[in-house]
Structures are given as C-alpha cells and as structure tokens.
C-alpha cells in the first residue's frame, strides 16, 4: 500500500508539472465547454438570413412577405427585381434565396374568384445539406399555411403544442457529459499509451523492475491517480458550466462512481495499447487512431440518432458510448437503472482490458 501511495505521489508530481498533463486534465474540458457553450447559447435566438426576390409587387405578395416575417425564423433581405436570381446568388455567394413569381398576385386573385388553376409556387433556392436550408423551408411552409388560412378565412382545427421534457435544460446540459467522457478518455487512454512507450524507451520500466514495486501496484496507482484528478476535473468543469451558462445537469453520486469506472476502462486500454508500442510518437499515433474516431462516434458531441444506421451499429461496439450514455442517464435524465446498466458494461470491458494488459505487459527484456 505504501509503495502505491509513493508511486501516486511521485507520478502525480511529474504528470501535473507537465504542461500537457495539466492542459488535458483541466484546461481542455473548460475550453470545450466555453467554446461550445458560446456557440450553442447564441444559436437558439439566431435567425436565418433569407434574401427574397419579389417579381410580383402586388399587395398579395407584400402580405405574404409579412407572414414570412411573422414566423420570426428569417431575416428578409430584398434582391432587386430586375436581377437574374441565379447570377445574383453566384455573384453574392448566397446559400439561400426565395423567389416570388411575377404572377403571384394575379394567380391568387384568380383562385379567390372562380379561376383556380392550382397553387402559385414560391421557390426556395438552396443547399439541402445545410441546416439553414431546413429552417428557411420550414419558415416558407409556415408562412404559406398561415397565408392560406387567412385568405380562405378558415379556422385552424389542429395546431402543434410543445412541452419541454426538461424544463430549463439547454443543449449544453446534454453536451456536458460528453465533454466529461472525452476528458476521461483523453487523459487515461492517450496518457497511458504514451507513458508505457516512454517508460519502455527510456528504460524506466527496467528501473522500476529493480525496485520492490510490483507491476499490479504500478497499474493500480495509475488508476487511482487518474480517477482522483478526473473527478476534480469533472467538478471544475461543472462549476464553470454552471456559473457561465447556468446549466442544470447535476453531479450525482453515480456520476462520481462512473468517473473511476471510465478511468479504469481507458487506463487499462491505454496500457494494453502500450504493450506493443516502442516509442512515444507511435504511442500518440495509435491512441489517436483509436481515440479520435471513438470521440465522434460515441455521442460525445451530438446524439447518436443523428448518425446513419451503420454508424449507430459501430457506436454500440465502442466503450465510450456506454460511458457517455451512463453519464447522461444519471446526470441529465435521472435514469438510475439505465445508468447502472451502462456502468456495468464499462466495468466489464475495463476488466477484460485490465486482465489482458497486466498479462501481456512486461517490464523486463525477453
């Protein structure tokens, strides 16, 4: 026990004095929260800029533009009526535009009388792959529905109602557990694979082998050290998110258990990767090759159901997915049962990695 404590103290001093260690433990998650918090806290109130070319100019089209403006989803900017719209879009590098045709007023007037020949089409120009396109189309559809009601003087019989599942919760509340997941993975996995490679290259393993410290004691000391600093990192990150952005997700007892469990998993995986790595550069490359895709495919930055089915299938094979899900279950949804199930998966995978790493890792030469 005293050897484990000595190693925690000695290793901890070295790790926290290295700029890389201190950055990835404390500065990195806070930086992520501040950046994403700033981006997403503004996006809720942002309107999409929608350039409109009105080729009609009748009171009908002016009324339609008023309906469009009332949606509060778009900022309307006018395109000169005499401009060629495709040239104008290219010349001004626009990603969106709306064109009201020249026969807008006359066709509506005809339809209101006895000469209905079908709806008049307003055309949205844009790129379907961009999120602003969806917002613009939704605004045009909403304006068209409302305009049709008003002209035909019918009363709406069905209207959508919205109820927040988590009153006051923001995107950042869902994002925060993902940041914690990334921080735990980055510190444990990336550090351990590099440390193993560096210790082998610089002969530290041989040096340790000559002391009374046992291999399992060294592994335990790394697990305990990273668990402690990552819990501190979690508390710091939450404090910053709460003070700066007023987040509502909570640090539960289970989340404090999840951190050591995730640390155990990724420290063990890092050691397993470190078994065959000879130098720190290769260690960083291998850890990045495994950790980087995992970061994006495990629901750290965005929900898994946004991804195609085949990527969702891959996500189920990634340990970070269960760690992220477990953290969200307990910190955001308050679903303790599901969080415990995810916790057990994390511990089980970690145990397999730990057994493999401690069996395959050798401090001595063959």
């Amino acid at each position, binding site marked *: 026990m005293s050897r484990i404590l000595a190693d925690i103290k000695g290793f901890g001093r070295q790790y926290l004095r290295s700029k890389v260690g201190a950055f990835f433990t404390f500065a990195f998650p806070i930086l992520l929260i501040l950046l994403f918090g700033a981006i997403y806290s503004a996006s809720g109130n942002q309107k999409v800029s929608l350039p409109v070319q009105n080729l009609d100019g009748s009171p009908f089209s002016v009324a339609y533009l008023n309906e469009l403006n009332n949606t509060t989803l778009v900022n309307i900017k006018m395109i000169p009526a005499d401009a060629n719209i495709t040239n104008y879009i290219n010349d001004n590098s626009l990603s969106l535009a709306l064109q009201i045709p020249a026969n807008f007023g006359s066709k509506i007037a005809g339809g209101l009388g006895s000469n209905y020949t079908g709806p008049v089409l307003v055309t949205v120009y844009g790129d379907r792959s961009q999120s602003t396109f969806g917002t613009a189309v939704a605004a045009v559809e909403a304006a068209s529905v409302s305009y049709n009601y008003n002209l035909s003087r019918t009363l709406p019989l069905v209207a959508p109602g919205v109820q927040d599942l988590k009153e006051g919760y923001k995107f950042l509340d869902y994002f925060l557990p993902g940041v914690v997941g990334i921080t735990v993975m980055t510190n444990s996995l990336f550090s351990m694979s590099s440390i193993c490679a560096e210790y082998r290259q610089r002969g530290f393993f041989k040096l340790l082998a000559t002391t*009374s410290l046992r291999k399992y004691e060294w592994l335990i000391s790394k697990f305990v050290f990273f668990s402690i600093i990552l819990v501190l990192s979690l508390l710091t990150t939450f404090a910053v998110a709460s003070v700066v952005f007023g987040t509502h997700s909570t640090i539960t007892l289970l989340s404090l258990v999840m951190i050591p469990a995730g640390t155990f998993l990724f420290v063990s995986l890092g050691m397993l990767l470190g078994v065959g790595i000879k130098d720190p550069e290769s260690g960083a490359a291998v850890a990045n090759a495994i950790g980087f895709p995992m970061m994006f495919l495990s629901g750290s930055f965005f929900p898994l159901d946004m991804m195609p089915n085949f990527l969702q299938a891959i996500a189920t094979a990634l340990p970070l997915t269960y760690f992220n899900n477990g953290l969200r279950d307990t910190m955001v949804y308050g679903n303790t049962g599901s969080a415990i199930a995810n916790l057990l998966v994390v511990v089980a995978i970690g145990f397999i990695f730990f057994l493999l790493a401690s069996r395959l890792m050798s401090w001595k030469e063959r």
Partner: protein
Amino acid sequence: MSEGLIQVEGLSKHYPPNVKAVDDISFTIQPRQIFSMLGPNGAGKTTTVEILEGLRTPTSGTATIFGVDVTKDYSSLRDRVGILPQSFEPFDNLKPTEAVQYWAGLYDIKMTKSQVNSLLERVDLTERKSVISRSLSGGEKRKLGIALSLINEPELLFLDEPTTGLDPKARRDLWRLIEEIRKKGTTVFLTTHYLDEAEKLADDVAIMHKGKIVARGSPRDLIARYGKMTVIVLSGAGSEALREIRRRGIEATEENGDVLVPVKDPTEMRAIFQKISGIELHAKDIYTRRQSLEDVFLNLVGAKMDEGDLKP
C-alpha cells in the same frame, strides 16, 4: 576457487536466428572490490549485467548473487543490490530531493529530510537538489542515478557504463564517487568501454569481446601478460628515423609520426637507449611510456576502441 559474491557458470544468452550475445562465460567476483567488465559496444556486457539484475533470462548457465539464483529468486536480492542502468535518465519533472523520496518509497524505505539531504551531499548534488531534473547536466543526472541506486544501502552496486557521453571533468567526478563507494565496503560491478576508466578504478577486469571473456585479471596483471610493458617514444621522429632504428636491429613501429620502441625487459632499457643515441634523430622529444590497458586491448582484439566502437 573460493565462493564469490557473484558466481557465474557457463552463462549464455542467444537470440534467434544465430546471435550469441553472451557465449558460455564463467567468472567469480569477490566482495568489496571494483570489478570491471570491459569491452566494445555489442560485446555482451549489458546483456550479462541485465541477467545478473534479473532483467533478462539466460539461455543456459547459472548466475548466483549472495548464493541466490538470480533467475529464480531475484526479488529476495532487491534490498541488497543497487542498480544504475545504462544511459540512465531521471524522471524529468522531479527535483532530486523528490526523486530520492519517490524512489525510497518504492523500496518501502522512509527517509527523513536530513537523510535525503545527506545522500544528495554524498553524490555532490547539494547545490542542485531543488532544481527540476530536466535542467541537470549529464554528469549531475548520473550522480542522481547513483544516489537512487544507493537508497537501499546496497552491498552490491551495478553501474552500467556510468560515464558514457560525459565530459572529462564529469567523468573524473564520478570516478571519485565510485572510489568512495567502494571504500565504504560496497562491491561495485562496473561495465565500461573506457579503458582508462577500468585501469583507474578496477581491482579486477574482465575483457569481453563477441560474447566471450578473452582476458581476466587486475589491470597490472593484464598489462604484464598482454602488454609490452614500456615503450620509448621518439616524438615526431618520422619514417626516416624508423628505418635507421630498424637497420640497427631494434624493433620499432611508427604511430602518427612518432616512433615507438618497445622495451620487453626493463634491463634492456639502457642498451637500447645507447643504440638509439648513436643515430642522428630529429625528434621533438624523447620519453618513456608505460603500456596501458589500451595496448592490452589492441593486442588481444586486434583493434582499438573509440567511444565503444572498434577501430582497426
């Protein structure tokens, strides 16, 4: 032969397909001596030492320290053995005081602040004890390494090429330290490729080449057996003088413009000088040089050693 502190019998370490890093060596080391294993890079010194340190498994043979088989029960020796590995580098972000405390903890040893300071004073690191290790010089890092290897007050200390890559002053400082350690009763197993280091420090030398021990004895014995004892050096005399000397039946060689005349028997010295004095020489200086382990090594291996590499 009396039972030694270290006893090695028929020790071999082979690597596939056909590399014999250590090839059937046997030796015994007596306590309270500095034993030096001398040889060029790749001779098998470090492999031998690492087998004795329990870090490698031999292909065949036995090795015991204090009567304990190192391949079976090295852990029981940990408290009695200190080790400075080859190319030792301390942990970058620890101060020497912290490194000593850390290392003591790994041996389950509690050291007071004054004990830590006293150990660092012993290796002459008092003034640098609070500097982050990455800022220490090469010599200071090795001194710290020796301090770490002395934490458990070992009876046997392995120093694997402790002065490689250091400047002359740092080497001399470490030599002083190693001599002091021996004076306190610790047996030192020193591997080196510096002939002057072995000659200066060692009581007992084993010259290793291609995995085998090719000579063994004290530096004086080895020089007596394999050297040519004394050489008369005619500095800057050149090839013309060499021809004249040889014409008079005197054995001589030329090295970098100097003419070297070996004197195998000291009683012949006067006669050789008389013969040489009859020749008109244009030498800058004439002096005698006692032969060293360098000459022994050249005679045994047929090549000189420069920073551990063999030069023809």
